[in-house]
């Protein structure tokens, strides 16, 4: 699991109480700031603990690793510290295996294990809004309050994090009953016993190695009964994702991981009803956010094209009445491209139908997940139109309504889930709707 270089680094360092992990791939522009913030945070809030910052790099060619090693706090006096400081070590190492964030995390956790760390925090390398307080907020609940997993809680622009808002948060909350608002936030604090548990699992070579890692970590922490809390980190401002990254692949990896874990933790979520809040650390305040541009027309077009071309594949997953309701939505979208809606309850049932089909048809899993992209874009378009004039708190209320719709649809999920393997419900014959785009 550890490369020779990593082993040598571990042998040299011998011990660290805290490990801060930063996975990266071509993040030279922002990673220097992230490393400096982490360094300052460790120096300011944990001066008496030995710590190391590990950059796990996926083969960047833009000087990311050099930027990490060069980054340092220009003037330590700015931190207003009187106590003697232990040095914060910095490492930048390439990881091996499947290229992706998950593989980077795996190396970070393995090094944290070898170094005997009590707590590990991971932060994204593309962050522009990280401050030294983030380190405190992610690590302190682990070291001083007995939590095993600290999830982030941010203010984000209403159109940022739509996979979180439209699928992952409502579904995870409805399934496992905990309101972890940013289950795929990317910045987490993890206790030793939990990252040891992650390391002993054998599904690292799946979507977990890529974008599935965040929801995988969160779900395991919740489903296996670890102590989970959230820390308010302020605003999440980050660089745009790698332009080469493919939305469909990201959606497939994230949603695929949720669905796969649903099978594993069926015994957990079956018994859960409703949801409860999670402890939240940090002082909440409102912040200004970068606007996120959206192209409504293109999303609507992608949705309608999806319905026209992919309904045969959707019909493998969707229950007849849901497919008919979707056809009605498409008719509405075609007639009134700026005024149509994909209702919450229908969206919840669609996601749940796909989860059941994912279980029922292993061979078709990739198709089902990849065909979800136009549906997701349709849901996002509907959400954008609905919240166009809303302020942040109103949007949050709107997301709460969606979550309640998911929770209300849980009996439907159970019914469909249980029907798998008994009598197969006939996939629906799609309604003949002529959609022109």
């Amino acid at each position, binding site marked *: 699991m550890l490369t020779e270089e990593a082993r040598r680094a571990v042998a040299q360092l011998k011990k660290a109480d805290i490990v801060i992990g930063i996975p990266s791939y071509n993040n030279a522009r922002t990673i220097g700031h992230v490393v400096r913030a982490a360094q300052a945070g460790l120096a300011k809030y944990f001066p008496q603990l030995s710590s190391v910052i590990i950059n796990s790099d996926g083969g960047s060619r833009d000087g990311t690793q050099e930027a990490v090693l060069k980054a340092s706090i220009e003037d330590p006096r700015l931190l207003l510290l009187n106590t003697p400081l232990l040095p914060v070590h910095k490492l930048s190492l390439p990881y091996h295996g499947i290229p992706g964030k998950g593989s980077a995390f795996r190396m970070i956790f393995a090094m944290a294990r070898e170094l005997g760390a009590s707590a590990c925090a991971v932060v994204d390398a593309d962050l522009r809004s990280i401050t030294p307080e983030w380190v405190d907020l992610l690590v302190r609940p682990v070291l001083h309050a007995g939590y095993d997993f600290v999830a982030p809680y941010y203010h984000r622009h209403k*159109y*940022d*994090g*739509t*996979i*979180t808002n439209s699928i992952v948060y409502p579904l995870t909350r409805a399934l496992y009953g905990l309101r972890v608002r940013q289950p*795929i936030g990317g910045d987490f604090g993890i206790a030793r016993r939990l990252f040891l548990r992650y390391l002993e699992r054998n599904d690292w070579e799946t979507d977990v190695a890529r*974008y599935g890692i965040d929801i995988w970590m969160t779900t395991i922490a919740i489903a296996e009964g670890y102590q989970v809390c959230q820390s308010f980190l302020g605003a999440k401002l980050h660089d*745009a*994702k790698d*332009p080469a*990254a*493919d*939305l*469909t692949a*990201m959606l497939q990896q*994230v949603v695929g991981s949720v669905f796969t874990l649903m099978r594993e933790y069926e015994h957990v979520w079956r018994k859960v009803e409703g949801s409860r809040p999670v402890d939240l650390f940090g002082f909440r305040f409102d912040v200004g956010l970068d606007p*996120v*541009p*959206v*192209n409504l027309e*293109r*999303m609507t077009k*992608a949705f309608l*094209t*999806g319905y026209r*071309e*992919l309904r*045969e*594949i959707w*019909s*493998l997953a969707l229950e007849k009445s849901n497919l008919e309701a979707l056809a009605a939505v498409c008719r509405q979208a075609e007639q009134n491209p700026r005024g149509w809606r994909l209702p919450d309850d229908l969206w919840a049932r669609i996601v749940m139908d796909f989860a059941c089909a994912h279980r*029922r*048809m*292993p*061979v*078709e899993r*990739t*198709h089902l997940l*990849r*065909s979800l*992209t*136009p549906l997701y*874009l349709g849901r*996002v378009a509907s959400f954008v139109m609905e919240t166009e004039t809303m302020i942040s708190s109103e949007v949050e209320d709107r997301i709460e309504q969606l979550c309640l719709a998911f929770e209300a649809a849980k009996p439907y999920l159970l019914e469909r889930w249980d029907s798998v*393997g008994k009598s*197969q419900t*006939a*996939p*629906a*014959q799609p309604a003949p709707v002529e959609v022109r785009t």
Partner: protein
Amino acid sequence: MIGTLSEILEQSLQRLATTAKTYVPPLLAALVIFVAAWLIATVVRAAFLRLTKTAWLDRFVVESGLSSLFGRNRPLETAPLVAGVIYWLILLVGLLTGLNAFNTALTTKMVEAVVFLLPKLAAAGLILLAGVWLAQYLARSALIWAVNENLPQPRRIAAAVRVLIVFVAVVVAADHLNFARTVFLAAFLLVVGGMVLAGSIALGLSAHEALKRRLAEPAHSGDGEEKSLWNHL
């Protein structure tokens, strides 16, 4: 004269009797065997439908994607299908056994031919089935990819993939059966060669400029509107 006539008549009747003696018993035996086979086949089919639980097979057919291959709007019921196959196999065995009862060179040859051909036919059938399954799978992949990439005519792209894979399966099956081998092979080479040539010409003539523009502006796709579609994680 009358003597000759009666002699011919006698000989003719004798030949008829000999023929009847030679062929009627085997014919009757063949009929009995065939009727018995039909009875057995009918009973076995009914018993299979009544007694055998094929839920695991139904599940396999759904999980493997074979269900959507045969009838995409209705899940495939495997019990009648398997029962039907058993029924026809028993009938075929009955027919061959019946034919064997004649014990002539012709019937022996026929039986041998069928016995020799049957495994080859079954293998060719399996090759075709696998080809159609693969064609369906890859066509779906192509369709979803084309839709998500916003390419024009996604169904045509999927259909092209499907036709190509099925065609390859037909060529392989024909080759296995040693049937019109050269015709299929030539057709296959013509089709693939034609496609490559057409693609090259299309790329050379039509897409040349677009490709040049695309290569000249590598950063363009990451800007502005393009970002908005995937910047939502």
